[in-house]
């Protein structure tokens, strides 16, 4: 029964992985990759790792692939055109070499002595969230903290890469204090439900619009 489930999920994973490589439209590759992630999550559940399975679906299929699909939509990627003939002969060479690699790995695996321990036998406690949490915060605390710094670096790096121009270039559309008011708030003679937008480009201008700067006006007068 477990062997049947393994073969089902493994076939699903391999099929979706082949679809990732074979598809020419990158959006179809992204959908197939989500299929790979979900079948791998099912395999993790079979291996008594429910926390890792949940994190796999949440982080990989739910965050990373959404980001990739956003970027594909943003850049409006089209299908790959017909391959240029210059490097076309390398494709079957790559497939042949990968078949050789699979054969080598299969030979190694067949000659490895099999283990008797099964992942789900005898109430194994390895993959339960509490055991992962207790190990993560006691014995592996240093990698955990370093990972948080790594995430901070990724955030700063992504923001720096996505910015156009240098620091606060004149074309930057983010001005400190820029705000939007409803016309009914700013104009005392407008109807109370007049929600047309009045744009203020800085805090000073917003204060002028709201009539909050009488002190300054008296000083400069």
């Amino acid at each position: 029964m477990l062997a049947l489930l393994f073969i089902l999920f493994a076939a699903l994973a391999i099929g979706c992985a082949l679809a990732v490589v074979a598809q020419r439209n990158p959006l179809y590759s992204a959908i197939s990759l989500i299929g790979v992630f979900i079948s791998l999550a099912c395999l993790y559940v079979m291996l008594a790792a429910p926390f890792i399975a949940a994190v796999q679906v949440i982080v990989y299929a739910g965050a990373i692939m959404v980001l990739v699909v956003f970027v594909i939509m943003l850049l409006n990627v089209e299908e790959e055109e017909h391959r240029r003939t210059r490097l076309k002969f390398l494709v079957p060479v790559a497939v042949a070499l990968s078949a050789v690699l699979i054969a080598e790995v299969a030979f190694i695996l067949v000659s490895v002595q099999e283990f008797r321990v099964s992942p789900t036998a005898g109430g194994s406690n390895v993959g339960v969230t509490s055991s992962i949490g207790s190990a993560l915060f006691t014995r592996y605390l240093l990698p955990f903290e370093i990972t948080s710094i790594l995430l901070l670096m990724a955030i700063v790096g992504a923001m720096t890469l996505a910015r156009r121009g240098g620091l606060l270039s004149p074309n930057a559309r983010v001005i400190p204090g820029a705000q939007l008011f409803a016309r009914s708030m700013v104009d005392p003679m407008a109807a109370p439900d007049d929600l047309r937008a009045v744009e203020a480009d800085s805090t000073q201008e917003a204060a002028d619009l709201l009539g909050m700067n009488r002190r300054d006006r008296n000083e400069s007068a």
Partner: protein
Amino acid sequence: MEPQLSWYLALSAILFTIGVTGVIIKRNVIAMFMCIELMLNAVNLTFVAFASFFQDVTGQLFVFIVMTVAAAEAAVGLGIIIAIFRNRESLDVDDASILKL
């Protein structure tokens, strides 16, 4: 018959090899990035299989760290891809083969 450790290792090797083939074959840079993620997942499967068959939680913790690193790499890598696309107007890897714009 229960699935043996070697079955999981073989599946992981097959997925990794498919990922390597994809990185070599694909010309679209986002598709190459997705094949790199496929390779990372194959290695994750190896770690989880060893963790469960040796009853050691260290493998699953490493998978946790690998997933975090993959998420960070996805953010920065896609930022680089967008920056390259802004300058070259093309997502073809062969067009970005020299460093000069």
